[in-house]
């Protein structure tokens, strides 16, 4: 295509984005926009799928029938989110299995939070309350993302995530109001999960490579630091309500700004985990690879059977 034509297509595209008209799969979009979306949505999908693992770690040890059922239902929702998101990626021309191979070969990332281990039952509460709580902060604005299929997937995802956040908070509340042993279990888990949860919003704005362009394309609506602040402001009063202490001595409500000031994140830890050196990076990716490899014969059988059946049906008709 002529360069002038491309320029004018790009102008029309940006004009649609500026006027809040959704971009749909068959519409023109710049290559960089498509690539950014494929990267972001597939990584989001991988996060949902890898995110099953830390919670699945407690399914067989859930403390009662109700908690077992709720936890199973929640993990099933996460797998469902993965499914819509992989479908959204496919509308951009990417192949689901290829993007999964990228994950397995270390070419694609997923949310670093899932590289932390779930060590006690209280961690099921923290994952729901903090991890899903942080995810909601990130995802609610994505319901207005310029790319139609992603935005629509997010509407449904957010509804379910908000239920997950509530069930997590309910687990934590029950513990915080329980015996001293249970309260200690909750506090100890909060101490481990608080800072990794704040890291979920990514680097500070000054160090974020994708933010400016993504905001121009209206894929992203708020900066990392804005979202992080919203999360802190929403979560601190919840912790106070149930009598747990946020593990941050610098945390203080600032009357002037109307927001909580909080301490410096350990960015070394953040980058370590992003680079693959977190407590469970190896285990998470190995588990996903193993599932794919162990399932190979099943997928082959399903494909071969489908072909056989198609041939037989053809003969009959």
């Amino acid at each position, binding site marked *: 295509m002529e360069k002038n034509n491309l320029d004018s297509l790009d102008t029309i595209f940006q004009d649609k984005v500026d006027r809040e008209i959704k971009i749909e799969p068959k519409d023109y979009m710049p290559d960089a926009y498509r690539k950014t979306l494929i990267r972001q949505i597939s990584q989001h999908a991988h996060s949902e799928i890898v995110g099953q693992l830390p919670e699945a770690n407690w399914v067989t040890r859930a403390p009662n*029938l109700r908690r077992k059922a709720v936890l*199973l239902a929640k993990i099933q929702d996460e797998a469902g989110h993965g499914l819509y998101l992989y479908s959204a990626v496919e509308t951009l021309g990417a192949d689901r299995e290829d993007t999964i191979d990228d994950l397995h070969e270390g070419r694609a990332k997923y949310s670093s939070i899932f590289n932390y281990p779930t060590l006690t039952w209280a961690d099921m509460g923290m994952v729901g309350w903090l991890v899903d709580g942080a995810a909601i902060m990130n995802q609610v604005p994505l319901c207005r993302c310029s790319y139609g299929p992603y935005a629509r997937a997010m509407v449904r995802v957010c509804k379910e995530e908000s239920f997950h956040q509530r069930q997590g908070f309910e687990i934590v509340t029950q513990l915080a109001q329980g*015996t001293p042993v249970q309260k200690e279990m909750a506090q100890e888990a909060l101490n481990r999960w608080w800072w990794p949860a704040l890291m979920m919003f990514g680097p500070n704005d000054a160090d974020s490579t994708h933010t400016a362009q993504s905001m121009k394309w209206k894929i992203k609506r708020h900066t990392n630091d804005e979202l992080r602040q919203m999360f802190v402001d929403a979560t601190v009063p919840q912790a106070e309500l149930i009598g747990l202490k946020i593990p941050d001595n610098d945390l203080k409500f600032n009357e002037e700004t109307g927001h909580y000031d909080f301490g410096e994140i350990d960015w070394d830890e953040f980058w370590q985990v992003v680079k693959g050196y977190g407590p469970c990076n190896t285990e998470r990716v190995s588990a996903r690879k193993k599932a794919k490899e162990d399932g190979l014969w099943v997928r082959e059988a399903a494909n071969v*059977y489908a072909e056989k059946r198609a041939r037989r049906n053809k003969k009959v008709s």
Partner: protein
Amino acid sequence: MTKQEALFEFLLRKADDSLILGHRLSEWCGHGPILEEDIALTNISLDLIGQATELYKYAAEVEGKGRTEDDLAFLRIEREYKNVLLVEQLNGDFGKTIVRQFFFDHFEHLLYEGLMNSTDERISAIATKTIKEIKYHLRHSSEWVIRLGDGTEESHNRVQASVTDLSRFINELFFQDEVDEILINEGIIPDVKTFRVAFENNMNKILEEATLSLPEEKWQLSGGRKGVHSEHLGYLLAELQYMQRTYPGMEW
């Protein structure tokens, strides 16, 4: 044995079947061969845990000793679990999980159809709700048996090996003793002997389409209904009961 004791025992047997199989299926969560099947197995697991909960609740009421559904599910010792041996068997590969489910679903389908006509209103209500789930489970496991049996050479060999291996647990599904005798006379449960032929015909029809067959060998195991299990159950219970045993008497 009184009618009340028989009813309690029956409810426990069926609740344990659902709980233990639901627990086994939940072990697949996050590790399925394909995302759609990860979701399907979790979904079936969820149905089974739900069924177990309803059955334990009723069992606790029938017993009338102040125990709750969670006490029954989590706080008995190994010999007190009354599930059939089939459901506690290890998941193995996906094909083995499917075959275990296939045998179970075929039995459950006929049993619960009978339970819908129970003279016990509570059981008939539970059965009416449960049968819808079982029909879905049955379709799911049957379709996979066909796909794997008539798929590749490898899938055929794997799934045939599982059919052969697990077939020694089929007979126990039809176990009967005094408990059943009392409840059959009261019209509370159907006589499973009456649908044994239908069970075999239904299964064989699918197995034939799948190019699979049950072994000639009629060697059969049992013991679960009397609380004598395979070695696998103890480990399953150790995980299942971990929280309740480690933190006695706490609410979660």
